[in-house]
């Protein structure tokens, strides 16, 4: 773990780092590919909508020795509709019959109870009208719309509009991927899935916001220096918050994985499983998008800003001048690692609030800051 800590330190100081922003075209390409796959999957295979959307009933029986096949026959004969029967864990059966009226479902419930030799009220029934799923879906869209508008406004105020837009695109990206996975794998879409999807909203943005917060801080006073362009600073702060992002994602995924694999595995299909599956897929997509999509997008948008263009120009000019002067290394990180002042000065130009401390140090010796500017 200490290696990871060290890596964290090196990432933080910018000694090592991956050029996420520079190679953004690759990531955009991958994301576009995934998105297209998702959309094609959605168009071709469609979503496997649960009974909540078609109307029907789910019966869950107590543990029983009656075979799934026998239960299926009973359910189909009684209801006159196709039944799907699953054996859950160590005995209970889950019988799902779509397109069922209440009366039919009650008869089916009674028939199943009779077959199992238990009283009717031991057979758990969940009857859903066909309009219920639509209602939930409609409200979900409605909620999605409201949330997106509010969050864009909020992010535009808390950060800036470019970040708000990038976050929104990353969010849509996550949702598309999640829905695409559902279409391709054929997981059943239930109200639980819808809940999970809507929760991704908050989570996906949580990660993005943490990264953006670092970026905002890193980009403070950016126009007052000429060492880095916005994209470079974006990449540095991305690398700086990488450990944090990974940790938050892992920690968020762990309980969800617990729900998915233990809760779900124990009980088979059900609300817990539906929510956690959507969350799991969405969280993973969210972590990916906050690093590979959202920040590069911000950098892209920001580089179009005249101020940033001017900065990029100044940076290039300065680098050219330095190269002409034949300084040993353009980047301070290439200098002798033992030189403490260089170490701290490096982020000093990048991270605003640390400047004062660095400056204070600068006056006490080492190379005066002014020289570098």
């Amino acid at each position, binding site marked *: 773990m200490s290696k990871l800590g060290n890596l964290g330190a090196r990432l933080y100081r910018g000694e090592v780092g991956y050029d996420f922003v520079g190679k953004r075209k690759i990531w955009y390409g991958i994301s576009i590919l995934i998105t297209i796959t998702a959309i094609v999957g959605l168009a071709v295979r469609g979503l496997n909508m649960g009974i909540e959307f078609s109307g029907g009933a789910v019966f869950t029986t107590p543990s029983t020795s009656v075979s799934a096949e026998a239960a299926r026959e009973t359910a189909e004969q009684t209801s006159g509709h196709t039944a799907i029967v699953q054996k859950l864990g160590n005995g209970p059966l889950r019988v799902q019959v779509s397109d069922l009226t209440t009366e039919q479902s009650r008869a089916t419930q009674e028939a199943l109870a009779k077959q199992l030799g238990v009283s009717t009220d031991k057979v758990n029934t969940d009857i859903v009208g066909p309009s219920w799923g639509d209602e939930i879906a409609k409200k979900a869209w409605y909620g999605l719309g409201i949330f997106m508008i509010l969050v864009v406004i909020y992010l535009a105020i808390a950060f800036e509009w470019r970040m708000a837009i990038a976050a929104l695109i990353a969010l849509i990206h996550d949702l598309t991927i999640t829905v695409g996975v559902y279409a391709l794998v054929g997981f059943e879409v239930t109200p639980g899935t819808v809940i999970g999807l809507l929760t991704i909203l908050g989570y996906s943005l949580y990660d993005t916001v*943490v990264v953006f917060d670092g970026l905002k801080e890193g980009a403070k006073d950016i126009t007052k220096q000429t060492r880095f362009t916005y994209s470079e600073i974006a990449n540095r702060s991305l690398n700086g918050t990488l450990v944090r992002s990974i940790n938050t994602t892992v920690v968020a995924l762990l309980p969800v994985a617990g729900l998915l694999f233990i809760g779900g595995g124990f009980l088979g299909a059900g609300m817990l499983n539906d929510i956690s599956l959507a969350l799991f897929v969405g969280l993973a997509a969210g972590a990916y998008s906050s690093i590979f999509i959202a920040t590069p997008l911000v950098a892209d948008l920001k580089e179009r800003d005249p101020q940033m263009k001017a900065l990029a120009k100044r940076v290039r000019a300065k680098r050219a001048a330095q190269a002409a002067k034949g300084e040993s290394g353009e980047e301070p990180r290439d200098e002798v690692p033992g030189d403490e002042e260089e170490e701290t000065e490096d982020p000093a130009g990048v991270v605003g609030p640390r400047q004062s401390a660095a400056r204070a140090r600068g006056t006490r010796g080492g190379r005066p800051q002014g020289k570098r500017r």
Partner: protein
Amino acid sequence: MAAPKKGRRSPGGQGRPGRVLALILIAMVALTGGMFASGRTTPRLGIDLAGGTSFTLEAKNEPGKPNAINPTNMNTAVGIIERRVNGLGVTEAEVQTQGDNHIIVNIPKGTNAKQARQQVGTTAKLGFRPVLSVAPGAKNEPTPDASSPGKDKDAKDKDGKTKPSGSPSASASSSASGAPSASASPRQQGRPVTDAVKADATPSASAVAKDDKAKDEKKDDAKKDEGKKDDKSKEPTPSPADVAALQKKLDALDCTTPEGRAKASEAAAGAKTTDVIVACKKDGSAKEILGPVSVEGTGVTGADAVFDSQQGRGWLVQLKFDSSGSKKFADVTGQLAGKQPPQNQFAIVLDGEVVSDPSVSTSITGGQAEISGGFTQASAQDLANVLSYGALPLSFDVVTEQTVTAALGGEQLRAGLLAGAIGLGLVIIYLVAYYRGLALVALASLLASAILTYTIMVLLGQAIGFALNLPAVCGAIVAIGITADSFIVYFERIRDEIRDGRTLRPAVERGWPRARRTILVSDFVSFLAAAVLFIVTVGKVQGFAFTLGLTTLLDVVVVFFFTKPLMTLLARRKFFASGHPWSGLDPKRLGVKPPLRASRRPSAPVDPKEA
């Protein structure tokens, strides 16, 4: 919890971390004490965990009343359903509105789901209709002068055939969800209008009530009735031709079986208030032709069952009408009083079934009426109940119905808790492995968060009826991640500061303002998501959103008033301050290269700067 406020003094800043810590500990003790004082130490469990039956009702828009679905009407409906459900001996049933047009009815275990649905699902509409004709409840043999007895018989035979199979669902579709019954509808769709009108008489016709074609046919029917009504608006007696048609309907009606009654009442309930209908008496003893509704149930303001000992009339039901209701009632009773039996009766029709059909001897004015004769205490109270609470201002569809056995709910809760425990365990292992000693802070904070969440949930169960359902459990588990995220943000900040060469105490103070901002911004986004979810959705989703929102808020509270002060206190401990290898704050492990700046500047200025 809004945008990060600048310049706010961090709670428990350097000065008095102990005081803030003590404050939140007192709050926790108070909440726990409150929980024990309130007499409940477990959260209220939702119907899906405790077992029972849950209905979701959706208010339907009715033609001609586009604005009927409004909060006032919804609340009235909730009140009526609640009294109805609880008035029937079910305890602790919950009825609440959800969203704009949904009502959730939760009935705890131990109730017969079928009966419960009858009470809740058949959302009664009450009306007073004049009685035009009465016949015994059994099905008559088709009269010879009926135009197509064969066909009627056909329909009947079909009914007769399906009934013995023992499945009440075979052709009836009393489901309010309106799914057309498969057996009845296809055949009728293709029928010519005249036949269809006739088919209306057969009980199964209601099955196609939602069908467009059937609607058209019905309209025809209604038009006829309206025309007739215009002709003799004062005399609710149909023309001879209609009488014949109605008689035929009446003949076809079979009120002796529950199925027949159910079908009849559904057909009658689906009819317009201006239609002449045929209906069964509730006990199946008679069937009646009824005129258009003369007084709507909404005109009744109250009804009581009273025992009359003075005149020896036994149990009777006293009715009170509102002003327009009493006027209409006076009119109709005035008309009826002069007629011969059975036309001097009015029928109290609840959801297409005749609950009572008292006869009238005089015009009843003044908004007060009495119904007497042959009541037992129970039947009088029943009728009074129906009259008081039977008239819902809206009609509803049951969109979901869920019965859960307590055993299964318990199993799911166990699975959920197990999953949560394992998830928590994994998080703890990860935190300990990565953050070493700091994980203690995280664990203590998670614990504080858990105590707060649990006690508040228990107390909210008492205060606002919050019930922990399965999605809510799921939300709480997911929230472990959110809560832990905040610590990670803060810890990483502190470590970054240490990497900059600070000693722990200044690092803790300087890292805080920036971590605080990140935590606030990201928690706000989470909270926003939860709030939007909570507001726009219904039912189960709301439980999830509520838990998520609650835990997000508590996360902020815990981080501000617990984690931060605790961190400040711990930073004074030698174990952490000296960067013990197991503290998670060892400068060497964090990659700070010697010589450590700390040794040169032991008294680093501690001024948390707002980022």
